């Protein structure tokens, strides 16, 4: 994520919408980011961002489309389903980061019509999921795609997601576990994530705590509390478990035993 220069002039929604049509590419790039960041959910902003998904002007030497990336990310934040067809088209973009941003935004928008297009990115299965030469990523944004399929509840795709449990990259395995848990509610996958907490890489352990929080895998509560990760990550993960518990019990704020157990763990971490 490119953070804007602090010295950039203060934008307003009107100015950002105007800048998105500016001849200055850097102003357009920044305006697209800004509209998402401040969730300017106005029809003209959405229309212009959708149009920016097909921009040809802002192109890097390596063939990247920076404005499209920012527009795709912003549209995920604005929550307007009009963006879905444009984002689906972006899944075929030659720029990996546009495809990744589109998959993430389609996940956030929660529209299941994106599932067939997302599944296409898994073509060739694990064998095709290899690194691109001289780039820090695989041929497709597998993590974003698997995560989206899990969040969208695309149970038909289980046979396609499952093989990624065997992918050689630990982060991809984790995303497959997370998605399989969401699609099946089978504790074996939650336990798989807990086992991966023994991984030596601190960054991966942080990500796994995040995954456990999002899927709300309650039996992991103690493992989260004792994981070798900074306390702030543990608190956020436990908060995720708690929220999942509570959403299941509706807004009545029922103090179930498991909710109380999670809160006691959170108290002990302070």
């Amino acid at each position, binding site marked *: 994520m490119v953070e804007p220069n602090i010295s950039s002039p203060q934008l307003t929604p009107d100015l950002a919408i105007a800048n998105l049509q500016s001849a200055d590419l850097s102003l357009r790039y920044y305006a697209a980011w800004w509209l998402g960041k401040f969730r300017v959910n106005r029809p003209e902003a959405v229309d212009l961002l959708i149009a920016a998904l097909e921009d040809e002007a802002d192109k890097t030497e390596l063939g990247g489309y920076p404005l499209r990336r920012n527009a795709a990310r912003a549209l995920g934040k604005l929550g307007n389903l009009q963006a879905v067809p444009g984002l689906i088209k972006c899944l075929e973009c030659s720029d990996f980061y546009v495809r990744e941003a589109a998959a993430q935004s389609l996940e956030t928008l929660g529209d299941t019509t994106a599932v067939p297009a997302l599944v296409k990115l898994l073509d060739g299965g694990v064998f095709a999921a290899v690194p691109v030469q001289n780039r820090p990523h695989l041929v497709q944004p597998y993590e974003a795609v698997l995560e989206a399929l899990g969040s969208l509840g695309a149970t038909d795709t289980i046979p396609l997601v499952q093989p990624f449990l065997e992918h050689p990259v630990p982060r991809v395995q984790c995303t497959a576990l997370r998605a399989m848990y969401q699609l099946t509610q089978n504790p074996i996958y939650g336990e798989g994530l807990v086992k991966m907490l023994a991984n030596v890489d601190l960054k991966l352990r942080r990500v796994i705590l995040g995954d456990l929080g999002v899927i709300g895998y309650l039996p992991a509560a103690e493992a989260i509390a004792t994981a070798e990760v900074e306390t*702030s990550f543990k608190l956020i993960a436990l*908060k995720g478990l708690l*929220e999942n518990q509570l*959403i299941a019990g509706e807004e009545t*704020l029922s*103090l179930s035993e498991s909710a*109380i157990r999670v*809160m006691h763990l959170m108290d002990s971490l302070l």
Partner: protein
Amino acid sequence: MSEELIRAVTEAETPVQMVKAVQNLAAAKFAPAIPTLIAVFGYNNPAAAVVAVNALIAWGEIAVPALLSQIDDYNYGARSYSIRTLAAIADPRALDILIASATTDFSPSVRCAAAKGLGKLQWDKMSSSTSSIAISRAKETLLLISQDPEWSIRYAAIVGLQYLAKLAKIADVRDSVQTRLQELLVGDSEIAIRTRAQLASKSLATTSN
């Protein structure tokens, strides 16, 4: 023998030697070692610092004067270990530093530890004339930070308020804590905060009967 254990800490040459030396010193339960254990906070060795924190918590109030006088205003890491230790010991002599940390510390996790510590201070160690002012300062601090924009601070403030209302045993304190908990459990934007406020409120209502 004990001096040798202290020297082993000051002369440790590798991080692993340091952890071992601090473990040995902690196990000796030797009061003159307290300043050395506190100094470990400044050695940039988290594993050794955790051993020292636990040893000092076990010393309890005996370690408090040294902890207060050795607070390092220039080494942020060392300072945060001192505050965490003081919060866990919960001796009321730490009131001022805990109030300052809970409201203004740079790190949310130190603010959380200080907030919980403020609630757990052992008021019966103070004379009743000084304790009522001290309790009300702790209460005002926790009520203030229960409005913090950061959810973890509000969460810790609720935990602190729950302990405070229980330990202070003053009807006015209990009432104003209950009022604030009711506001949070209806109006907070985070469901986790509303639920923790409810748990605190219910727990206080049960103990008052």
